[in-house]
């Protein structure tokens, strides 16, 4: 039975880690692709309403956002507690919405411009008056594809 004789301690074979960086890199690339950085700092607080018939918002590069809600507590002293519009990084008035849309459209590739979508992220307690004004402004600037941001109702 010499074949099965143990001659000396064998010890654990070392785990080959040479492919570890490759694995990590693969994961890294995955996250780099799916990641979307929030490019604006929110100055209004909002909780989007709930719905059941929602569609996914695709092609992030074609989407511009308009936020409407009450100002964050730290801005409330200056801006009051009324619902405000936020475009990019600052508070705005309804009259500025059109300029914002034109600007966003300028930044797009020409072939993409007809597919521009505007996502309205509006707090659920906002009054319709301000939303309606924004919608009229969007109509005037021919940004007709809009998306009312909402969360799925369970």
């Amino acid at each position, binding site marked *: 039975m010499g074949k099965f004789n143990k001659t000396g301690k064998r010890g654990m074979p070392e785990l080959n*880690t040479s492919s*570890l*960086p490759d694995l*990590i*890199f693969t*994961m*890294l690339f995955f*996250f*780099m692709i*799916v*990641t*979307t*950085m*929030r490019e604006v700092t929110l100055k209004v607080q909002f909780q*989007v*309403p*709930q*719905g*059941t*018939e*929602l*569609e*996914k*918002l695709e092609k992030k590069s074609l*989407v511009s956002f308009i936020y409407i809600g009450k100002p964050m507590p730290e801005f409330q002293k200056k801006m009051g507690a009324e619902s405000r519009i936020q475009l990019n990084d600052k508070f705005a008035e309804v009259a500025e919405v059109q300029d914002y849309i034109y600007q966003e459209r300028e930044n797009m590739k020409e072939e993409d411009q007809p597919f521009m*979508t505007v*996502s*309205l992220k*509006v*707090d*659920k*307690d*906002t*009054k*319709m*008056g301000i*939303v*309606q004004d924004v*919608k009229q402004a*969007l*109509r*005037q600037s*021919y*940004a*007709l*594809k*809009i*998306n*009312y*941001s*909402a*969360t*799925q109702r369970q």
Partner: protein
Amino acid sequence: MARKKRGMPGINSSSTADIAFMLLIFFLTTTSMDTDRGLARRLPAPPENKDQKQDDIKVKERNVLQVRLNKDDQLMCGTDYIDVKQLKEKAKEFIANPYDDENLPEKHKKNIPLLGDCMVTEMHVISVQNDVGTSYQAYIDVQNELVAAYNELRNELGKSKFGKLYNECNEDEQKAIRDYYPQKISEAEPKKYGGK
């Protein structure tokens, strides 16, 4: 000058894993996987000039479903107050007009590819009117119910004609179904009853 070939010393790559890890963790923390979802709608084009605003498209009364929301989020459909939950059934009945009711939208014969000649309620309009003081959640609820009504009707039609849901149909079939049940939700200007 017989020099021995030295050869490149290999770069020590044992720390690539660490660098990659750091990048990975950075992207892991900044990533937001939740996709934005929402109700997709299309706004009507703005009126070309002010004179044209009073469009001469006359819509018969039976073809219009009036949905009104007041500032206290009360919902009125047609002539009576209803709950949001009833709106879907009302809208479905209105859009499809299954029994050819005289008070519901009139039907027209239309030739739709894949479906043949059908009687469709092409002329119907659902008119949503809200007050300045209506809350956004109530407005979305109404929009949501109306879209749900259309989706259910389309799914039913898809099931009976093609044996599958609307979303599962191919492009031509979807177009046929869309022709059968076109989405017509119009939004009137909000009424302003004094003050905000």
